[in-house]
């Protein structure tokens, strides 16, 4: 069964304290792994797509990496404005074309000044 598991469920950091969020997955027909950020009362905001093991992408204080079974979202020297829920999702192929996303439950990150 296709599944995405994120850990930890919640993470509290001090400003400047670097850490990593984990996303492990089992899925048939992987089309890509996606990271989203979600603020309260808003929809998920796209951050990264990773397609193959060994791939890395960076955006400001965030860096996403991918292996065959998991992805990490590394946060370097976080600031309070990085506080949000970070969602991991895997994309499935559907008949060779773009299919739906399977989401994890997310990691709620709080960064204290």
């Amino acid at each position: 069964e296709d599944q995405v598991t994120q850990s930890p469920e919640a993470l509290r950091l001090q400003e400047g304290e670097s850490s990593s969020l984990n996303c492990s997955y089992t899925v048939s027909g992987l089309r890509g792994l996606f990271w989203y950020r979600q603020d309260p009362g808003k929809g998920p905001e796209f951050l990264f797509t990773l397609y193959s093991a060994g791939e890395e992408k960076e955006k400001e204080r965030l860096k996403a990496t991918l292996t065959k079974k998991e992805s990490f979202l590394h946060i370097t020297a976080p600031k309070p404005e990085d506080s949000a829920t970070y969602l991991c999702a895997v994309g499935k192929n559907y008949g060779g074309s773009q299919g739906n996303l399977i989401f994890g439950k997310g990691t709620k990150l709080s960064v204290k000044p």
Partner: protein
Amino acid sequence: EAGVTQFPSHSVIEKGQTVTLRCDPISGHDNLYWYRRVMGKEIKFLLHFVKESKQDESGMPNNRFLAERTGGTYSTLKVQPAELEDSGVYFCASSADRGNEAFFGQGTRLTVV
């Protein structure tokens, strides 16, 4: 460029009533998705349109849910009759060509009382 827009942002209805949610995707995006997040659970896929055709509706919970996409533009999701377990946040997302990231709307929070 306007993002994905959803109406209404909130809806409170009584059990047994009908509710229609609307989604306006990003202009030019052929792919339109509906997702739902119920309390404490992950975001789950409901349905995928490619233009006006239903590509995948495997996530629709039952026949009380009806989705349409007239002329390949906006989409509606009707729940009739609504039940208590239909409460949650309904998200719409759109994407361009295959393999591209999906952009989400802000969601419609549906409460059935």
